[in-house]
């Protein structure tokens, strides 16, 4: 698996930057785009997230993994303002994000997707895309009434949307309702719609969930493509093959905390991670016999 992996120039650069980083939970990175401190969130008596320190390296693809209920999505929600933490402080690109509401983070260059895709089903694919563009003149109602004030901008937005649709191979569905797309296509639409905001950090919540194997390969390519275009990617995923294939760095969460960090190769061999996923008795058959592998 590892041998098959082809490292592009940006991948090599990202790897090189992370080469000297100690594989320890909450370790400092040379050039973090996102960093958070003491982020804590309780739901009733349950501590969903209790992260002391986390940094995401600029220009890299970082995977956030962990068993179900580890708090990955909650951390996503906290970082993007969709949920408010009990305590904590975090910065994006040098700017504090505490008390910044969800819609502001997107205009700052940090965009997210959702675990359950949120395609706007009763709107066409191209309308979905055009919605993503930020700073639209025609989104103020007093301009909306006068098409000559926003038509020019709309044209540019539409061109950009069409380019992205082509790149994500959705151009043949351009004028269909988004509700008619397949699950995988919806993931692609959501990702390309997020790119319409011109983000610097793209946060993908389980991009592979519900995507068929054939589409997975191309989705991998697309995610690598984001890094090639200079974006930073942070994604939550359960699909280990994918994590292995595309990520430069892996952060492992369990029970709300970060338990391990490191390169994908190091993480795969980390006993703490294996224990978190499978329990202490991993590798042993329940019947006490050797498991065929």
């Amino acid at each position, binding site marked *: 698996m590892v041998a098959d992996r082809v490292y592009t120039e940006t991948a090599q650069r990202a790897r090189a930057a992370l080469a000297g980083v100690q594989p320890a939970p909450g370790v400092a990175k040379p050039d973090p785009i996102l960093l958070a401190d003491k982020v804590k969130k309780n739901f009733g008596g349950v501590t969903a997230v209790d992260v002391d320190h986390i940094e995401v390296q600029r220009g890299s693809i970082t995977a956030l993994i962990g068993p179900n209920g580890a708090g990955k999505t909650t951390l996503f929600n906290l970082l993007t303002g969709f949920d408010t933490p009990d305590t904590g402080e975090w910065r994006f690109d040098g700017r504090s994000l505490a008390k910044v509401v969800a819609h502001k983070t997107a*205009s700052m260059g940090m965009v997210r997707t959702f675990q359950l895709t949120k395609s706007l*089903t009763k*709107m066409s694919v191209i309308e979905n895309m055009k919605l993503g563009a930020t700073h639209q003149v025609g989104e103020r109602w007093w301009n909306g009434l006068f098409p000559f004030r926003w038509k020019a901008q709309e044209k540019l937005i539409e061109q950009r949307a069409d380019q992205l649709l082509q790149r994500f191979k959705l151009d043949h569905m351009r004028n269909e309702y988004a*509700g008619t797309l397949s699950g995988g296509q919806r993931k692609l639409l959501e990702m390309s719609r997020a790119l319409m905001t011109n983000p610097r950090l793209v946060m993908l919540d389980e991009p592979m969930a519900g995507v068929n194997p054939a589409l997975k390969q191309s989705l991998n390519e697309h995610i690598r493509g984001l890094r090639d275009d200079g974006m930073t990617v942070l994604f939550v995923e359960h699909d280990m093959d994918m994590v292995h294939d595309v990520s430069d760095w892996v952060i492992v969460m369990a029970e709300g905390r970060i338990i391990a960090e490191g390169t994908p190769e190091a993480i795969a061999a980390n006993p703490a991670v294996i224990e978190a996923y499978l329990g202490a008795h991993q590798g042993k058959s329940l019947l006490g016999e050797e498991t065929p592998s």
Partner: protein
Amino acid sequence: MDWLKILENTVSSLVGIDAAYFALAALGLNIQFGYTGLLNFGQAAFMACGAYGIGMTAQYFDVSMWYGIPIALAFVVILSLLVGIPTLRLRADYLAIVTIATAEIVRLFVRSVRFKRFFGGSDGINSFSTQFRDLSPFDPSKQYGFRPFQYSGYTFWTLIVAWCLVGIFGVVVFYLMRSPWGRVLKAIREDEDAVRSLGKNVYSYKMQALVMGGVIGMFSGMVFALDRGSVQPDNYSRDVTFYVLTALVLGGVAKVSGSIVGPMIFWGLYVFSDNTLRELTRDGGISVFGVGLLQKSQVGPVNYMLIGIGLMLLMTFRPQGIFGNRKEMALDGR
């Protein structure tokens, strides 16, 4: 049975004043409910804002009736903020509950004895439309139009003003909804978290939709008040909101044509069934084998029952309404 008379009444009610002020109210409600997905069950309160705005201006301030429009606008904005600030952050159902309560509060407030000095209590405000009447270029003692569209000068004038307003706001809503602004509203209806993640201030857009729909509803209330020449608090109770909503769904939500034609058909049906029942019971009640089926005095309630059955059938067999999009409806199940 005088079928000709029934038919004439029905046809003329299609473009009657009731249809016109319903169309205005439905256009406003359509922005909120149809496009943005805000379940506003208090449209009657916004209509009351318009009616009381214009009524109070003429009654108390002794200024031109045109001042009624800014005063009513102020009422609408205050009401929208009062309702919207606490509830627009919540899920749609909560807005429905709050708006229905707000509309009732507004009605009970203006009809209260304590504020009789300002709002006229349960008698409302009367005889304030002289200025509007004076603007009319038509002779009030003459009949205008041709059968079945025959109206007295004043009604004819009100009708023209009302349908002009419907036309203007129809065009405004049509263009707004084709703009990027309208796109954001429709996206909010679909999934507001997605819109938020793309950097739009969902809360502010919802507020804009609430106010804009309220303003159109306000003009509806004005037209209604000017036509009747009086403002009665009980004309702005829950049932008005629900009839408007019904008319809107009948026409098809999220369509400008639907919110104009829906009310026309609603009133057409209403008048047709009402007139038919009245004609049937003109010479006493109907009875089958000596069992009384329908008395003259029961026509009103029975008429509403029939309309209710008709609407149930409509929702079963054509849930998207007359102008709605079947394809869009089908996407809902996913």
